[in-house]
């Protein structure tokens, strides 16, 4: 009869299941640590009395980085680590603004074609050697050398001769860069490129240590070999387990760095990452479980951080084939029939911002053109949609049959279903949904043979509207819509050559207006960055580029923690300690301490109420 023991065991498991993560019922509310009040000393640094004894930052970081060679890296997980390991000529402050990095200042010639960077003489590699202008010359030549096969090398395309070198018709030595002396680095551009400084925070433009690369080849990025010039240095790398960075004692600003160690955990599964955050293993997550916005906002609002991001989610029409070729009215009808509020509030549900534009709002020098129908009510849009649909030759008896293609993902599927339902409801369109594995989808999109309407999305590479607009140049490799408008191409060429910022801005607004008027895309929403952050982690700010350098961050003590208590415990003990401490505080005091609701920007907290537009859960 001992086998009946199985029943209580199962019952316990099922009880656990009752508080499981399925749907919006969500798991049991966790108890988050409550930070002490932040106090700064006279120098504006956080007071030593409030800092946690152990400054080890644990960051969830999405998938395993493809590489830690800054010149070969692509993707956000690599970039997050590389921005901690290396420092480019420019870097970003906690707000995401471009500030001097390895170069303490720079001059730009009147024609906008020559940039002269003056390197910080205190700049050091992690092996104590000085960072020189020659290091940058060698590194940038390496980026454009075809033998390096750097996939992001086009970031240096504005530099004189870069394109010819990439194409193999010129030698890397002819690149328009030179070292005027030990600490002066000069760059010559082919065209004035107002966003050029923005490119300098991208890992592709970071310097690498020549001697290490020449000695170890592609293995120069291994722990113990990687020589970097950033605030941290690579200490350990267990593939798909963790990447550990230690504070770089030779970093030029090392006295400002409070974090002693950063551990990046590659965590692909959002639920796994969430569980580890709840168990106290992480201070910072890369993502949050989709579809749990409401629960998280109710129970973990002090940890949930949602902010506008520099990216747009849209659908695109294939303009080279039936039925969308030369059928502006039909495209506009389909665009008008979509209710973006419903998609963001009831489908994607993570505070995404409904959008009618390609370029996301939030750029300092760019005001996106608003289409006429943005101010209409949804009912007015739908009426106009029906009128245009009929003018395009379709009706209830002769409905449009269209194919909507997206790549495999639960979120994409839900959004596609919603779009198809809206088309059906408003216009009577019959939609066939096609779901494809990502690389098959990309190939089909690029070939433009089988696509009609397809999902697309874009996160800007640098802080400039051009990073979005250039996608639709008729010669661009990712112009999967097949948009070929000579006027638009001409505008883009003018923007590339324009030196006066205000004129350039007007040209970009005009280009976006033209693109939207041509109904090339069906914008849905502006992406948001979303993550869970331990309330004890301070020193960081939400920013539209979503760049967060560990060197700006620090950990403060939690309340009720005895000040002289040894804090160096192993992970399990630490979690147990936190939980024990929190038993005293309880979740109520946690909420009272950190204010209410979701903050859309730390600097401008925006309490979430059911009436808040755009972020209302359902």
């Amino acid at each position, binding site marked *: 009869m001992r086998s009946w023991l199985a029943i209580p065991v199962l019952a316990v498991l099922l009880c656990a299941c009752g508080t499981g993560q399925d749907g919006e019922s969500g798991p049991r509310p966790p108890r988050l640590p409550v930070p002490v009040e932040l106090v700064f000393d006279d120098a504006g640094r956080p007071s030593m009395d409030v800092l946690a004894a152990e400054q080890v930052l644990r960051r969830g970081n999405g998938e395993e980085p493809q590489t830690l060679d800054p010149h070969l890296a692509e993707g956000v997980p690599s970039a997050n680590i590389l921005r901690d390991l290396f420092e480019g000529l420019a870097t970003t402050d906690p707000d995401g603004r471009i500030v001097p990095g390895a170069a303490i200042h720079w001059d730009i010639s009147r024609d906008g074609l020559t940039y002269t960077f003056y390197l910080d003489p205190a700049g050091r590699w992690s092996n104590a050697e000085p960072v020189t202008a020659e290091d940058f010359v060698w590194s940038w030549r390496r980026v454009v050398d075809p033998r390096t096969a750097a*996939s992001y090398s086009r970031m240096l395309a504005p530099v004189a001769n870069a394109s010819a070198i990439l194409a193999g018709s010129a030698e890397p030595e002819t690149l328009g860069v030179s070292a005027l002396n030990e600490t002066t680095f000069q760059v010559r551009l082919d065209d004035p490129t107002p966003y050029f400084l923005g490119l300098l925070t991208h890992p592709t433009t970071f310097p690498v240590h020549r001697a290490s690369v020449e000695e170890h080849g592609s293995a120069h990025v291994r722990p113990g070999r990687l020589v970097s010039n950033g605030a941290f240095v690579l200490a350990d790398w267990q*593939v798909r*387990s963790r990447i550990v960075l230690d504070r770089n004692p030779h970093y030029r600003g090392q006295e400002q760095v409070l974090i002693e160690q950063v551990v990046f955990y*590659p965590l692909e599964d959002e639920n796994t990452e969430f569980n580890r955050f709840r168990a106290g293993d992480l201070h910072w997550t890369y993502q949050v479980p989709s579809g749990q916005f409401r629960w998280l906002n109710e129970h973990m609002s002090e940890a949930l951080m949602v902010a506008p991001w520099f990216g747009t989610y849209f659908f695109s029409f294939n303009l080279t084939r039936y039925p969308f070729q030369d059928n502006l009215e039909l495209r506009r009808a389909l665009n008008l029939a979509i209710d973006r509020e419903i998609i963001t509030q009831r489908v994607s549900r993570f505070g995404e911002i409904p959008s009618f534009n390609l370029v996301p709002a939030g750029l300092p020098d760019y005001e996106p053109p608003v289409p006429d129908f943005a101010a209409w009510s949804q009912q007015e849009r739908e009426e106009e949609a029906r009128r245009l649909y009929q003018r395009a030759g379709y009706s209830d008896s002769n409905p449009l049959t269209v194919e909507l293609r997206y790549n495999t993902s639960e979120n994409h599927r839900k959004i596609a279903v919603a779009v198809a339902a809206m088309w059906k409801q408003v216009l009577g369109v019959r939609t066939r949904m096609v779901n494809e594995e990502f690389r098959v989808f990309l190939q089909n999109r690029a070939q433009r043979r089988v696509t009609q309407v397809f999902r697309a999305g874009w996160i800007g590479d640098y802080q400039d509207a051009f990073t979005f607009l250039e996608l639709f140049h008729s010669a661009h490799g990712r112009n999967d819509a097949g948009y070929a408008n000579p006027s638009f191409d001409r505008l883009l060429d003018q923007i590339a050559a324009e030196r006066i910022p205000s004129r350039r801005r007007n040209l970009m607004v005009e280009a976006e207006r033209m693109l939207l008027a041509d109904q090339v895309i069906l914008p849905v929403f502006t992406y948001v960055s979303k993550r869970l952050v331990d309330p004890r982690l301070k020193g960081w700010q939400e920013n539209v580029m979503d760049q967060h350098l560990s060197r700006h961050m620090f950990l403060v003590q939690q309340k009720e923690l005895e000040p002289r208590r040894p804090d160096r415990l192993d992970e399990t003990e630490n979690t147990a300690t936190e939980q024990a401490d929190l038993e005293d505080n309880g979740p109520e005091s946690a909420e009272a301490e950190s204010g209410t609701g979701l903050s859309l920007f730390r600097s401008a907290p925006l309490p979430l109420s059911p009436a808040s537009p755009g972020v209302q859960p359902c």
Partner: protein
Amino acid sequence: MLNYSLKRLASAIPTLLLLITFAFFLIRIAPGGPFDAERALPPEIEANLAAKYHLDEPLVFQYARYLWQIARLDFGPSFHYLDWTVNDLIAQGAPVSFTLGAIALVLALLIGIPIGAWAALRQNRPADYAAMSVAMIGISIPNFVVAPLLILLFAITLGWLPAGGWEFTPSRMVLPVITLALPMIAYIARITRASMIEVLHSSFIRTARAKGMPEKTVLLDHALKPALLPVISYLGPAAAAILTGSVVVERIFTIPGIGSYFVQGALNRDYTLVMGVVILYGILIILFNFLVDLLYAWLDPRIRYDDPEVAS
């Protein structure tokens, strides 16, 4: 026996070659390439990448190059994890997967066989029904349900064990090992029970009992050994599968084994990585099937491989 072993090992080479050829061309047929991304590469950069990885050569040349490479035990560079060779990745991941798999396997045998034998001895009694029902549940509940439940219970609700992450420490291994072992325990218990019942009804057991042999000797020496034959057959492929890791368990517990490479490698079109793990899996299957055959001979005295009459 030695002759037989050598022959079996020699026959493994064409099998492996066939596997390599098949896998090599199959992955190349899949649409899309390793360097496709949402951000399209300019043609000149695409050409540089193709040249660096020899993807611009005719496929047959690439195949010949690959064969020559693996003849020197070099699986080549990974197309996705650019800082590592496939050898590096397997060398880092395989010990993790092997350790977890081996512990789960031993655990499954130690628990599954006694449960199966015990249920067989109590055939059609409540204990038998209960054990087999639990086993059925073990088989039918997938590991992607079991794993989160275990985390919820032991890591989050009770706080006894970590929610994931990897180190060679018992506390990090407990939950993944249980998740891996549970369905296997259930399978082994059911197979053992079925085959034990069959053996217990055979005439040589009746004879042994009639001769007054102690029940313990009858069960352990005479009944259990032949009853294990089907379990051994099951173990061949199952061991190869469990030792090469599980995608689901690795993902949920964030374990850096090689199981995920089967899926991630294919999705990323990381040709060399997929080939590496497929070849490893192939070798393990061949090896374990060979071991199974050797174990057969040990467990069943009627099987002798070097006896020409029996072997033929």
